[in-house]
């Protein structure tokens, strides 16, 4: 495996006095000073790194760090102010339009944060778009698009419009569309950031599974450290347009290049970094008003559970019901669960750290509900998961210590 993408001194200046700003940049002036003197913003500041073939390269940074600008310069959706992007040795930033178009059509595909699906085209038509603009004839491109959709498990939805699909499914389409023309490089710009936490984790798993067999070169943009550590073979950390460190997750955690990175990864003695969000699972719920005690009881039997969570409008958590109470209601012929909802369920938000969870779950008789600020139920954490996650940590620490 060789170098697939090479980024050399890439600079993007936004604003009118581009030349002047570039000169100041060469003199080693900082972003703030250049803004003050010229009114131009340095989007990306002399970024250089190499990406190996077949790796997942994560570019991580907070919003405004220039990561989205950087990735857009790789396929020149944004024109670089200076510097080179070499893909297989060909300089993207110097290419003629025609040649660039060929690269975009055949080599590099992109997945967007808000999915970028065309609302007027069906799922199939969206998926075949890349092939369509290449001039592949209809029969063949449909066959390829259908195959890509089939791989993503979306073939049954091919005649629907994007708006009819959930966010997670839309992004699966976005990914299938990007893969339909079999590119070598996949640019993913905050591809999973707009998704619910559980769906997001599923998507990360799917991406990793897919990568096992496909071995694409993937450049993944995110602002989420956990996501970076989870999927990245190597991670580049950006701050104020500069790439401050490139390395494996391990290297970055153990050997932060400067204070900024250090603060970023401070608490990553992983038991602290794993949060409720990372280990929660999909809850079994019934909806108040929709299901009565009979349904609840039946669900508990088939799923072998002793209790079930009850939600209202918008997945708002109301409490839980237990089997005994439900059985009683069935006998009394009451049809609403309302009277037996118990509310003594512990709630945490999704950023609760795992060792805090340990204390909570130790005392709880029910699972711990993970909710957002509006009490919307995101997932549940059960005892086994917390202990499992902590045990894994210790195991890893023991191995690392040797």
């Amino acid at each position: 495996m060789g170098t697939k993408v090479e980024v050399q001194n890439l600079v993007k200046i936004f604003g009118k006095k581009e030349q002047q700003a570039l000169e100041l940049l060469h003199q080693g002036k900082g972003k703030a000073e250049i803004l003050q003197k010229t009114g131009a913003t340095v989007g990306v500041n002399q970024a250089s790194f190499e990406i190996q073939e077949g790796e997942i390269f994560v570019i991580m940074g907070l919003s405004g760090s220039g990561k989205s600008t950087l990735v857009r310069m790789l396929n020149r959706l944004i024109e670089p102010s200076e510097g080179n992007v070499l893909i297989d040795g060909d300089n993207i930033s110097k290419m003629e339009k025609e040649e660039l178009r060929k690269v975009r059509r055949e080599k590099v595909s992109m997945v967007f944060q808000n999915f970028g699906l065309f609302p007027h085209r069906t799922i199939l038509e969206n998926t075949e778009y890349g092939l369509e603009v290449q001039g592949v004839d209809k029969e063949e491109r449909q066959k390829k698009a259908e195959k890509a959709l089939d791989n993503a498990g979306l073939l049954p939805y091919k005649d629907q419009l994007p708006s009819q699909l959930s966010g997670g499914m839309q992004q699966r389409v976005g990914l299938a569309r990007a893969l339909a023309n079999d590119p070598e490089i996949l640019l993913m710009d905050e591809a999973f950031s707009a998704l619910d936490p559980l769906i997001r984790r599923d998507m990360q798993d799917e991406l990793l599974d897919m990568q096992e067999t496909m071995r694409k070169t993937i450049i993944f943009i995110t602002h989420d450290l956990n996501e970076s550590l989870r999927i990245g073979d190597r991670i580049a950390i950006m701050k104020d347009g500069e790439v401050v460190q490139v390395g494996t997750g391990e290297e970055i955690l153990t050997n932060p290049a400067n204070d900024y990175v250090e603060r970023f990864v401070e608490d990553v003695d992983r038991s602290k970094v794993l949060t409720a969000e990372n280990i929660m699972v999909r809850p079994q719920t019934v909806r108040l008003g929709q299901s009565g005690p009979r349904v609840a009881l039946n669900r508990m039997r088939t799923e072998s559970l002793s209790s079930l969570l009850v939600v209202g409008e918008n997945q708002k958590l109301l409490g839980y019901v237990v089997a005994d109470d439900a059985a009683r209601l069935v006998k009394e012929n009451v049809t609403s669960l309302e009277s037996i909802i118990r509310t003594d369920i512990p709630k945490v938000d999704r950023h609760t750290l795992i060792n805090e969870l340990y204390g909570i779950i130790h005392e709880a008789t029910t699972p711990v509900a993970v909710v957002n600020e509006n009490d919307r139920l995101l997932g549940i954490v059960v005892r086994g998961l917390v202990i499992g996650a902590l045990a894994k940590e210790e195991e890893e620490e023991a191995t690392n210590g040797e």
Partner: protein
Amino acid sequence: MENSFLDVIPRVPVSEWISATVDWLTNNLAWLFGAIQDAGDWLMDTMTDLLLLIPDFVFIIIMVALAFFAAKKKFGLPIFTLVGLLYIQNQGLWESLMYTFTLVIVASLVSIIIGVPAGILMAKSKIANTILSPILDFMQTMPAFVYLIPAVAFFGIGMVPGVFSAVIFALPPTVRFTNLGIRQVSEEMVEAADSFGSTGSQKLFKVELPLAKATMMAGINQTVLLALSMVVIASMIGAPGLGEEVISALQRAQVGPGFVSGLSLVVLAIILDRIMQGFNKR
């Protein structure tokens, strides 16, 4: 105010310049204007004759059916269309209606044929945008009657100058809304199209125009209604149709006939507007 010191500046002969320009155009391009007028007259006469060949009740049935589908199979609009057209027929204005109909359709089509590409150009090119914007402002704010004068100079009287002035008056909304519709297409859609290596025209036809369609149709709808209003005004320079009836009623101060024809125009406007809006929403 009688003796302002600004009077030392001699009057700039703007009107002479404009008159001279129009005269020059009339004299030197007479062959072109003549050809356009002949072709236009022939086309519109033929079209009206063809429309008049359709028996009135068949025409009414077609319009009611269109209204029925446009209104998503509800009955309000079809009933209005039926009653409205029967009223016009009943008042003996059927032939005038067909003339007006022809004029509106031709003026609208010409406006669309010119306006949509102009709108695309404005959306794509900063220079075109800078040049065309003030021209559109000019076209929209100049009192409509003024267009009748050069129209007569170029094309004499009749249907062709009517269409000419109607096009100038009705064109701006189509241009503006096409421009707006394309500019409103979200950045991410444009990036998605670009990232797959679309050419400019692929991006335009496969992504931008379809996404701008609803906005463009709103502009075209405006254009049709403006064309209708101008076609009426153009009756002053001899364009036939319902407007002619209104003008002659005005000249003779006949309240009754004036309102009868005016009402017919209202009916036509509402039918055209609602049917187009209905189809746009589908």
